[in-house]
């Protein structure tokens, strides 16, 4: 199914999800290298380089101004037509049931029919925060790259809520899921029946499901990124989505490209001459990564103010660098693995006063 959404909807839906890549928390990144953060409409194009294509298709439905804003907006709610079809059915069903007790019965009925979650999936990452009872949610792709959910809870009412969401959201593509605003909870009429703490759990459940959908999508993107460059390598063995290939297995390709003259300037693009550390970094990276392109830029002056720099930098004041490396070594490696590779190579520097690196690490095919 074509991932066709309007860019504004995408951006604002993503805003619902405070997604943090905690892996990179200790390293500074310039915004442009980070894929995962709320996208401004102008930045959507960066996704185009990967598998997903976002086309603006006029569907004739104008989203109401507050559709994708905070759930507590008292303005117009997201129109029911924007919800996935099964969810629409569920909402209509609950709306037709007036009596609170009957709503509970309906909820419990859903919960009863929820497929149980295998205990191996009851992990911390799958747990919904802010729930009075325990709730777990698991997400994975089916063959058509629609998201399938499984969930469980030790409380019957919460299980019903989880079942409701699982039924309503499963089998749908990521953008559609991301587009859902929590407003529909009001449409269910359950808000009144449920105490605030439980409602929050409901909202958090939805948020977690959306976050997991996004994660699946991005991971798929990363994997297919390495896939696409992987295709050009003759020595490729397996078609697995996350191949772990190291540089030794593709000597041929490296040689082909490695002879290209590396821009071997002493200075970074901003004119600051590289000091000893800068030179050491450059040498090490050249040696180990055989890069097609290598830029080492000393931006320590930008950080001269902050306390961590003063006195702790190994006397040379070289603490912050921008790196741009294009090398085949990165093929088949996820973003995490590429950066980790570079840090491993620069361990000595990091221990002796190098404070932070901003890294752009690409394979030649990605440039």
């Amino acid at each position, binding site marked *: 199914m074509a991932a066709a959404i309007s860019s504004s909807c995408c951006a604002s839906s993503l805003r619902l999800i405070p997604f943090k890549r905690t892996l990179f928390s200790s390293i500074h990144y310039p915004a442009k290298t980070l894929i995962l953060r709320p996208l401004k409409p102008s930045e959507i194009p960066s996704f185009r380089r990967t598998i997903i294509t976002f086309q603006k298709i006029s569907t004739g439905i104008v989203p109401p101004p507050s559709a994708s804003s905070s759930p507590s907006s008292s303005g117009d709610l997201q129109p029911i037509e924007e919800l996935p079809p099964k969810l629409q059915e569920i909402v209509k069903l609950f709306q037709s049931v007036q009596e*609170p*007790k009957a709503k*509970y*019965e309906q909820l*419990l*009925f859903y*919960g*009863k029919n929820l497929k149980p979650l295998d205990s191996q999936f009851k992990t911390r990452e799958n747990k919904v925060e802010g729930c*009075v*009872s*325990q709730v777990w949610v698991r997400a994975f792709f089916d063959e058509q790259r629609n998201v399938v959910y499984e969930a469980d809870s*030790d*409380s*019957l*009412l*919460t299980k019903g809520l989880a079942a409701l969401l699982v039924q309503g959201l499963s089998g749908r593509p990521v953008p559609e899921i991301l587009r859902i605003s929590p407003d529909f909870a009001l449409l269910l009429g359950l808000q009144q*029946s*449920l*105490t605030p703490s*439980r409602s929050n759990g409901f909202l958090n459940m939805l948020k977690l499901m959306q976050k997991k959908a996004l994660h699946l999508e991005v991971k798929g993107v990363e994997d297919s990124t390495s896939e696409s460059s992987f295709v050009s390598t003759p020595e490729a063995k397996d078609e697995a989505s996350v191949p772990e290939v190291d540089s030794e297995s593709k000597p041929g390709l490296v040689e082909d490209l490695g002879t290209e003259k590396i821009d071997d300037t002493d200075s970074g693009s901003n004119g600051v001459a590289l000091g000893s550390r800068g030179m050491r970094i450059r040498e090490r990276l050249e040696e180990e990564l055989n890069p097609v392109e290598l830029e080492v830029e000393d931006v320590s002056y930008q950080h001269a103010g902050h306390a961590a720099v003063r006195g702790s930098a190994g006397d040379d004041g070289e603490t912050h660098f921008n790196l741009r490396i294009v090398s085949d070594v990165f093929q088949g490696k996820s973003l995490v693995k590429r950066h980790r590779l570079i840090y491993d190579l620069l361990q000595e520097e990091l221990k002796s006063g190098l404070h932070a690196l901003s890294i752009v690490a690409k394979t030649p095919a990605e440039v």
Partner: protein
Amino acid sequence: MEGVAMKLPSFKSLAPNAISIGHRSFSRVRRSSSLSVYSAAASSATISTDSESVSLGHRVRNDFRILHQEVNGSKLVYLDSAATSQKPAAVLDALQNYYEFYNSNVHRGIHYLSAKATDEFELARKKVARFINASDSREIVFTRNATEAINLVAYSWGLSNLKPGDEVILTVAEHHSCIVPWQIVSQKTGAVLKFVTLNEDEVPDIEKLREMISPKTKLVAVHHVSNVLASSLPIEEIVVWAHNVGAKVLVDACQSVPHMVVDVQKLNADFLVASSHKMCGPTGIGFLYGKSDLLHSMPPFLGGGEMISDVFLDHSTYAEPPSRFEAGTPAIGEAIALGAAVDYLSGIGMPKIHEYEVELGKYLYEKLSSLPDVRIYGPRPSESVHRGSLCSFNVEGLHPTDLATFLDQQHGVAIRSGHHCAQPLHRYLGVNASARASLYFYNTKEDVDSFIAALADTVSFFNSFK
């Protein structure tokens, strides 16, 4: 016991004291709509099925307007007093009165209003001191709540008295407020925390506690009455054992001070904490009782105005206790309202309140345990074991949150579900959460009956989905 028939032309015209005839008499009161409640009435508080005698719960009901409402289409049945109690009109009036007529900062001003505010504030302190039989009102430090009071002891006394290897004894049943501050302080000082586990009656094992006390022990910090198990600890004995090795004792009396007579002279504890909001007082105020010489030896907790003597640029000297531990403008109105709460409770009489609650609590326990698949935590009530008037329980196969939600939504019954700020205890009992119904002297037998009926309905509703 003779019943005495009284002719009461107009109830309102009688002075309160005129009602009491003899020590334990039934006052046959005509239940008319003009029945107003005199809290000083000395008639006995029984839950007799005799419809003509009025139980304590019924008598005080009109003092608590909040109890007369409907929630979700049913009459409110409030069974969460262990979380916070309701306030009688007298307490609300006192608070309103303060702000309306003499609000002014205390201890600072000279003018009329500030003098009056100061007098009332210090009078409230004296009332609290008298309530727990402290020897001097300066042994009462007003804090924000009991949690802050424990933190005060932890940071002020703990940091300057605990050394590496010193031991602090707690129980697994403590409230988080009596665990976490000690964890923080023990990390800073190198002291070690030791926990007393429960015995087969689901009460902290006193024998084990005794054995744990050693010359290394510097502090024993325990609850008086548990907010989950409803059990009480023999504080007097614990204090004797602790003092024998030179250790101090801190008593968390949050669930005891509101419900029974607590006499710090008898207990002889070094520190005792309680919260106002659990004893018919407002939130935002609580107190620490500390023995005079102990408080005098402790450095300040929070720094600021009021707790100082002289302030220079590079150092300051500190005031005497209790001011030393009361930095900044206190919750003046709240303290005064707490004093009013103490008056209200004393007017009824703590022995009376306790007696009533023991009976009502026993009734609750019996009715609850008669339901199938109900597991109540804590000891069984008996001649020697008096439970507090609360029951934490679980129903087999049902999550407490489901119970509490349905009880609230369909029946207007307010109970609590969760871990009741006692996660270690729940872990020890092997459950994630429990439901808890807690009573106070304004609850009645009908409240308990409504709860039990509602619970039965709830259980059958959920069971029909199994």
